[in-house]
């Protein structure tokens, strides 16, 4: 194998990726292939080689493969900007967003696999949406008000900017599923709601518009499928592509739920 001549790529090149400036490397992408609708085809890794382009992301690489080499390759993308959360996959064994991963940060050989822990749609595409919906229904991740529907003709109640900012910080979760694939607990125990679930309840716990008491939160989060199942392995925190403060939120809910139990 020849050493990657990284020097070919000028460090401060600000030409755009679309111009397909040759980054100098030939990449080999080994991609997991399996289509549940064609079970006679065993799951296997298929290799594709392509020339690396400047500031190439995995999103660009995968599209190139689908356009030029294999139109049957399945993978998900919507926003290609790290917002929709649909492109998460295992990149050399670790979860991440394909649209936010530059090939130049990776070795010449790149292995791509679907996120474990979710239903496989085909190849790199998994049904995170179904999982997230189940989690959301189990934890009831929406505003609960005791006073019924709000009066839409009246001004909304004021909220301290600091509270609003804290809520906004936790709202940034894009439900990509990386924290579930990075969590040993969630991988061993499929009924664990994971950091994404705990973080979402923390978001409603600090929202003054949600009237639920800690006892009510405890009902959905207070056992081993919830916050007490977490063993503090911290994969979630270290692999969340949105850098959410997950360890802190899990600790926060753990303290609240302990108080609710005693």
């Amino acid at each position, binding site marked *: 194998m020849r050493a990657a001549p990284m020097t070919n790529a000028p460090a401060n090149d600000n030409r755009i990726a679309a111009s397909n400036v040759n980054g100098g490397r030939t990449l080999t992408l080994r991609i997991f292939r399996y289509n549940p609708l064609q079970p006679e085809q065993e799951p296997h890794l298929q290799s594709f080689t392509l020339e690396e382009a400047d500031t190439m992301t995995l999103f660009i690489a995968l599209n190139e493969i689908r356009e030029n080499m294999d139109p049957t390759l399945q993978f998900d993308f919507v926003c290609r900007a790290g917002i929709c959360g649909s492109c998460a996959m295992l990149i050399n064994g*670790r979860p991440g967003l394909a649209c936010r991963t530059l090939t130049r940060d990776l070795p010449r050989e790149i292995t791509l696999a679907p996120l*474990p822990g979710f239903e496989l749609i085909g190849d790199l595409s998994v049904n995170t949406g179904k999982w997230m919906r189940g*989690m959301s229904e*189990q934890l009831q991740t929406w505003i609960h008000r005791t006073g019924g529907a709000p009066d839409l003709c009246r001004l909304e109640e004021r909220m301290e900017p600091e509270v609003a900012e804290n809520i906004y910080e936790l709202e940034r979760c894009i439900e990509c599923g990386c924290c579930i694939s990075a969590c040993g607990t969630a991988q*061993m125990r499929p009924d664990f709601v994971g950091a994404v679930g705990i973080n979402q309840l923390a978001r409603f716990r600090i929202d003054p518009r949600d009237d639920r008491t800690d006892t009510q939160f405890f009902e959905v989060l207070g056992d081993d499928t919830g916050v*007490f199942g977490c063993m503090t392995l*911290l994969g979630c925190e270290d692999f969340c592509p949105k850098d959410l*403060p997950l360890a802190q939120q899990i*600790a926060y809910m753990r303290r609240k739920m302990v108080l609710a*139990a005693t």
Partner: protein
Amino acid sequence: MTQPLTGRRPSRLSAWMDMVQGGTGLLLVLFMWAHMLMVSSILLGKDAMYWVARMFEGEPLLGKPYPILVSGVVLFILAAIVVHAVLALRRFPASSHQYQTLHHHIRSLRHGDTTLWYLQVITGFALFFLASVHLYQMLLHPGDIGPYASSDRVWSGRFWPLYLLLLFAVELHGGIGVYRLVVKWGWFLGKDPRRGRRRLQRIKWLITAFLLALGLLTLAAYMKIGMEHEARVGERYVPAHLQPVAEPQGNP
């Protein structure tokens, strides 16, 4: 996570188990730190260790040593370990399928804290056996603690291999344990939780390195004394202030 659950009332057991597991873990770590400092008194000399041993037998207060006090402490620690281990058992992977998933996960993720957790599970498992042997010995022979008695056990009684393994298992397990406990409940993370966590990790390794070094030196000291005392196994140490005044050296 399949169907929505409505109106379920989870028992408080999970919450209590989590608290008690952490509580017994913390208690055991604090005990192990204090224990290491006491045992290492041998590095200050036989008399220092002799004094520490008699103190725990209540001599300064009760006038004479009562080794049964040691048995009492041992029993208490044993109980804490049993409770802790029973609760920790629920965290072990429970089937070959879970082991497979976990091993695959650890290998492909290459993630420090996940790997450390697994090291904790393995050392915890080893402690089942290593700690029981030691505790049984101390429970039934609480009087055999002293500069010569302990050294004889370490060397002539061939306990040093056990103690060597026990040292590494306890320090790794306990060190990782407190670190995870602190992060788990969100203590001492400071304003910036990420930097706080890295700081805690550094502190954790410093403590572990210090205790391992101290432990190895201490074990070496007992082994040396035991080696030198091999011919007179069973003889008890007489502290300096009770030793008969040494015969004047035969000056020519």
